[in-house]
């Protein structure tokens, strides 16, 4: 939620707020422009701290004060970073030596940082850094992503010189050397299951806690609130609770209708949920990847949302109806996690998704395959946090989709209090998503909503990539792939795999090919800038 560019000579200079950013010389620290965010500066004896944070109370709206502290900057940083919402801080030492950029426990709109040509640059949208990058990909990490679709949640990215500021982490920039280093936080302990009182009502407790979290997150923000309704459990719960907690008149639901035979049942579930919530609803027919050449101005984020066309349309619909805050449903899977020992006793789950990426794709070069194994040994994951790593990765994946349209996403399922509550529940309440199903059933929804069969899936949308005209774009994209020039893939084998995926729709590997198409598109924006969407 910050964009910054810092030159060494400006670090110890006179910082003041002007034209939407803190500025010193040609350097700036700019908050993401949204009324729920607050920014200010703290003058400590040996450093200045610029902070940007979620401020649901709205106490600092329109003001950019400078406060003074008589404590060491490190202590000020520790106290401020304990903020229960998103917060990012930039520590500017008066000796100009080492800049620290830190974040708190929110971390759902993370920063990406790079040091190039003696300048520190960081942005919530990694695409803003692309002009500063040389177009290089880390061979091992990119091959890892081509195989397993994304890196583990941690500071490393597929770009050699770009770091991801993960939950509670700090990045230090040695201004003289132009070197970045990461400090991960201490690992957090995990809440464990407890016994319930005989008359306990976990559903009511969950409902009230969820509502409290939503009211706290929205605070005094005025205006319409968007929710996503997929037709599934998590977004359905979020919408029902939001309508009650925030006021039905201001909550508007939005959702993508996914192609395929499941669409009628998905649409029916959405209608049942939104009708019960009493909210106005907008359904948008999802368009498959590579169906809209006009989104070339929406640059690819390698770890971002695959379905850019669909989610862009969703975000635009939200903006069109005056929504600048979005309540998201991601994290609902994670609150239902079973521990390893619990999972050993639970019924086995269908493994179709696992089969999708069971093997490295055969179009990786031998060099790339070896590099994957090397990368695996070097990747350092972020330590255990309040929520599961997949929650933070998911938030990072979708943040640009919405923030590029001025929408601030909030994540009730990632609130530490809710995660701790759910992890404390006995296994029987987490297994098979009983908690969410019970809440929906108590609200009066029928079994075909409570237990979707089949549940909505984005796979038919993905499969649109393998049908004309989208497949024509991808086929042309793979004709002379930049990924081959980079030593990542064997061009003929990639093309053969693509044609095989078209001929054999049920065979695994389609998602890996979608990943390759995205990375190829991004690589072309750098290596062949005249053709951002394809040849």
């Amino acid at each position, binding site marked *: 939620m910050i964009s910054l560019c810092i030159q060494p000579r400006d670090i110890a200079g006179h910082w003041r707020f002007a034209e939407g950013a803190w500025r010193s010389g040609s350097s700036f620290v700019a908050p993401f422009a949204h009324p729920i965010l607050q920014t200010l500066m703290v003058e400590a004896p040996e450093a200045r701290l610029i902070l940007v944070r979620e401020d649901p109370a709205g106490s600092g709206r329109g003001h950019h004060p400078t406060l003074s502290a008589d404590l060491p900057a490190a202590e000020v940083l520790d*106290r401020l970073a304990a903020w229960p919402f998103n917060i990012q801080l930039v520590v500017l030492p008066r000796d100009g030596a080492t800049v620290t950029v830190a974040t708190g426990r929110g971390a759902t709109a993370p920063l990406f940082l790079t040091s190039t040509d003696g300048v520190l640059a960081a942005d919530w949208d990694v695409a803003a850094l692309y002009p500063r990058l040389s177009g290089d990909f880390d061979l091992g990490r990119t091959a890892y992503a081509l195989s397993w679709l994304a890196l583990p949640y941690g500071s490393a990215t597929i770009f050699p010189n770009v770091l991801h500021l993960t939950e509670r982490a700090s990045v230090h920039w040695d201004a003289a050397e132009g070197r970045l280093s990461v400090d991960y936080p201490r690992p957090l302990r995990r809440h464990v299951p407890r016994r319930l009182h005989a008359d306990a009502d976990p559903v009511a407790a969950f409902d009230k806690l969820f509502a409290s979290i939503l009211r706290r997150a929205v605070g005094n923000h005025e205006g319409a609130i968007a929710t996503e309704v997929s037709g599934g459990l998590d*977004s359905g719960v979020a919408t029902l609770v939001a309508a009650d907690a925030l006021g039905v008149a201001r909550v508007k639901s939005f959702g993508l209708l996914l192609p395929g035979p499941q669409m009628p049942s998905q649409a029916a579930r959405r209608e049942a949920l939104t009708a019960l919530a009493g909210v106005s609803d907008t359904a948008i027919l999802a368009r498959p990847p590579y169906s809209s050449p006009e989104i070339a101005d929406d640059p690819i984020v390698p770890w971002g949302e695959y379905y850019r066309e669909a989610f862009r349309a969703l975000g635009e619909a939200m903006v069109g109806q005056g929504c600048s805050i979005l309540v998201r449903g991601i994290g609902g*899977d994670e609150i239902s996690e079973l521990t390893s020992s619990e999972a050993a006793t639970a019924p086995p789950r269908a493994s179709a*998704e696992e089969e999708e990426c069971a093997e490295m794709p055969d179009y990786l070069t031998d060099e790339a395959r070896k590099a994957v194994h090397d990368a695996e040994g070097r990747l350092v994951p972020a330590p255990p946090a309040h929520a599961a790593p997949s929650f933070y990765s998911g938030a990072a994946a979708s943040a640009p989709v919405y923030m590029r349209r001025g929408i601030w996403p909030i994540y009730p399922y990632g609130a530490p209090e809710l995660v701790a509550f759910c992890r404390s529940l006995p296994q029987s309440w987490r297994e*098979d998503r009983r908690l969410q199903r019970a809440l929906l059933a108590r609200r009066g929804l029928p079994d075909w909503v409570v237990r979707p069969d089949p549940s909505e899936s984005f796979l038919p949308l993905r499969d649109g990539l393998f049908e004309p005209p989208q497949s024509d774009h991808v086929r042309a994209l793979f004709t002379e792939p930049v990924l081959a020039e980079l030593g990542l893939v064997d061009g003929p084998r990639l093309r053969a795999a693509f044609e095989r995926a078209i001929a054999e729709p049920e065979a695994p590997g389609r998602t890996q090919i979608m990943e390759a198409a995205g990375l190829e598109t991004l690589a072309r924006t750098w290596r062949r800038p005249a053709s951002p969407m394809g040849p």
Partner: protein
Amino acid sequence: MTHDLQELARTDSLDTAEAERIFESPARTEPAAANPPHDKLAGAGDSVRNQRTATKAPGGHDAAKSRDGG
């Protein structure tokens, strides 16, 4: 700290007392297993690509997941 800064750092914790009342005992925690050094991801069935993480658990992942109807 000055009064202003104290006010700035003040965090009103969420009232979880009512939620806590359903449990027989106080909250307990244990050291969490380290996140895996590498983690193969699953398919594209969910709306957010990385929401799929952790369905596979090489390297001793701390938790398995159930998922449907996101």
